């Protein structure tokens, strides 16, 4: 028991204490975390939170300025911007999380493998990484989105997620590899090898947990990046398509035509994007400062 129990119990305890320390050490981080939670809440319970149906066209109240009935005004179709923002947070989060998680995880595995095996494997992976890095993001996105027959999950195109996730892979792979290299030379890895454990065991049991810090940091940072990317792609009309509620989309299309008369059309979505991305960046940042011993007092 004493073997199994601590294994399970200890991390949980540390998690809670960790959360406490984190809040104390990184007040900004804590704030950003609260913002993120709010977003998630809005995203998950949007059907209850949102005052209107985001798809409901109402030509009677086109481009209505912010008012009590429409907190953020309405857009060119008379749809309630506030509601669309709330529903949009779902889109943003789903894309942000899935893309960033997929990208970061694949990248991490590549990075660790690259560092652990070294030699040829390392060379090949590094070459691949170089190629992906040299490849202009925008083209990658444009083509991936255009190329493959689209496959929808909850109104969100998996291609879009792929398009956003792929560029993340090489970047994470680089960083994780660097971290993994320093872990690779740690005596406890030698000890594990001397004990004759399998590669899989050493990679996943001994190395992976020790590069989890850079992984987490990159993960949060790239959630932010992914949300931005989604916004940009939607702005180009490559991402989510009307009438789905998505922040980037709300800045594009006929917003371009109307934002001079109806600034609220671009103001609030812009703020929403910035705030969300800000929160994730700040959180990732604080996480870095918190996890990175160099930055600890």
């Amino acid at each position, binding site marked *: 028991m004493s073997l199994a129990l601590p294994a399970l119990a200890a991390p949980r305890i540390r998690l809670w204490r960790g959360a406490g320390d984190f809040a104390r050490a990184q007040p900004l981080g804590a704030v950003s975390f609260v913002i993120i939670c709010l977003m998630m809440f809005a995203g998950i319970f949007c059907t209850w939170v949102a005052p209107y149906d985001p798809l409901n*066209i109402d*030509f009677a109240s*086109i481009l209505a300025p912010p008012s009590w009935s429409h907190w953020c005004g309405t857009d060119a179709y008379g749809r309630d911007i506030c509601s669309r923002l709330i529903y949009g947070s779902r889109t943003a989060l789903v894309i942000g999380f899935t893309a960033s998680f997929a990208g970061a995880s694949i990248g991490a595995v590549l990075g660790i493998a690259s560092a652990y095996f070294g030699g040829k494997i390392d060379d090949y992976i590094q070459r691949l990484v170089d190629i992906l890095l040299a490849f202009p993001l925008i083209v990658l996105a444009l083509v991936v989105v255009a190329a493959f027959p689209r496959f*929808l999950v909850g109104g969100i195109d998996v291609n879009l997620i792929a398009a956003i996730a792929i560029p993340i892979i090489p970047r994470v792979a680089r960083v994780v590899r660097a971290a993994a290299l320093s872990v690779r030379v740690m005596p406890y890895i030698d000890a594990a090898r001397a004990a004759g454990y399998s590669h899989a065991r050493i990679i996943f049991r001994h190395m992976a947990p020790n590069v989890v810090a850079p992984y987490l940091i990159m993960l949060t940072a790239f959630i932010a990046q992914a949300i931005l990317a989604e916004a940009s792609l939607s702005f180009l009309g490559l991402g989510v398509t009307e009438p789905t509620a998505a922040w980037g989309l709300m800045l594009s299309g*006929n917003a371009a*035509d109307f934002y001079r*008369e109806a600034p609220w059309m671009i103001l609030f979505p812009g703020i929403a994007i910035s705030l969300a991305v800000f929160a994730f960046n700040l959180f990732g940042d604080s996480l870095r400062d918190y996890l990175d011993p160099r930055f600890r007092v």
Partner: protein
Amino acid sequence: GAAQAQTPKKGGTLNFAISAETPHYDCHGSDTYATLHFSSPFYSTLLRYNLNKFPEVEADLAKSWTVSPDQLTYTFMLHDGVKFHDGTPLTSTDVKATFDRLRNPPQGVISNRKATFADIESIETPNPTTIVFKLKAVNSSMLDHFASPWNCIYAAKDLAADPNAPKTKINGTGPFTFVEHIKGSHVAGKRNENYFKQGLPYLDGYRGIFMLQAAAMLNALQGGQVLAEFRGVSPAERDRMVAAMGDKLRVEESSWTLNLVVVFNVEKKPFDDPRVRKALLMAIDRWGGSQGLSKISTLRSVGGVVRPGSPLATPEAELVKLPGFSKDIAKSRAEAKKLLAEAGVSNLKFTLWNRNLAMPYTPAGVFLVDQWRQIGVEVEHKQSDTAPYVSALQSGNFEVAIDFNNLFNDDASLAMTKYLSHKGNPLNMSRSNDAEIDKLYEQQVRERDPGKRRELIMALEKRLFEQGYQQPLLWWHRIVLSHKTVMGWKMSPSHNLGADLADVWLNQ
């Protein structure tokens, strides 16, 4: 009106915006106004539309013309002393060469007018200033075809040298001569000093500046960096500019020879069932939609297959009887629901293909999704770039799509070609084959009496909508903005017309 009354002033350079850049200069092989707004000022055509009394036609290169009573022979007298920009005089052989190229282009040359001039049997040139066209059969819109702006007259020797010369080389008889084309920036022309029409053109020259962002174009217009854009803007844009520029701005409006079309792929279930197609059409509140959409998009007029307001258009009173045009939308939707139930697809789900252009495709798509939502049909809106979109429609890998009918002039027959049977007609995306429609079309083309022709057209329309293969959603509404200083330019229902700038002058 009043503007035209003043006596034109000579001189000045006109800067206007062209919201697309043409890939090449050849009118014959193009369908986009981008080519015309670029090339028209350099070229002449045999006839042209008289934009003051549209849709009447008037002479251009031809001084005059006669049509034989049996409507099978067209004879044109050319102006004499007409010179190409490179100095070579224009003769009937040049015209013949041009029309031969149009009706059966040599290997490697593309003519999008092949079908249009298919009825021509032979072209004769009795003398340098006379040219005679002999037709196989009566064609009620032949004059329209001769007046079409796409038939730029090229020099025979150029074509002899290289059939594709016009793609890259400009040598016409038009009011302006080519100066430069800076890719991604602008095209410039200057006055053709020996233009065959005396005293024309008024302008010393012009600059067509390519501006692909509407927003940027409007800024430029407001800032006076360009004085006009001759294709058309959205109402929102109009309103903004009016607000910004007040009476410095001239706004001209007209219905437009463009419409969006709802297309059902009859080869895909359940759209092989007329009831489903009809039901979906009936759920669309065109009259309401036109109200709303006209505020935010270039969509406006409700109409049948022929442009509303044109001589052969179906009057509203008749139109409202057709499925999808009823003004009592509640009743119409209830009926639609019933039809779907009969067809056994009460909770229908499908993907609506749409082109990825902000204006007016996106609004149309958003509108349709919303309309169909209201009879419990769940629609997924797929917007994609032109290439995938076109190929999907061409290959029939779609269920329902928003297609577009770009009429390059105001000819009724042209307006109907889209609905002819799929075989031999790549324009018909619904892939429907309907002998009756083909028959009606053929009859109206060969019909000499306008009254009877109109009957036929209405019959065709009725058949088409009852079957509901495809149906015009809304017709576009053209709004052209220009500074009041720009005079002599004439508004028309087609943005392909009046682009030669010969009569345009600046009032400074």
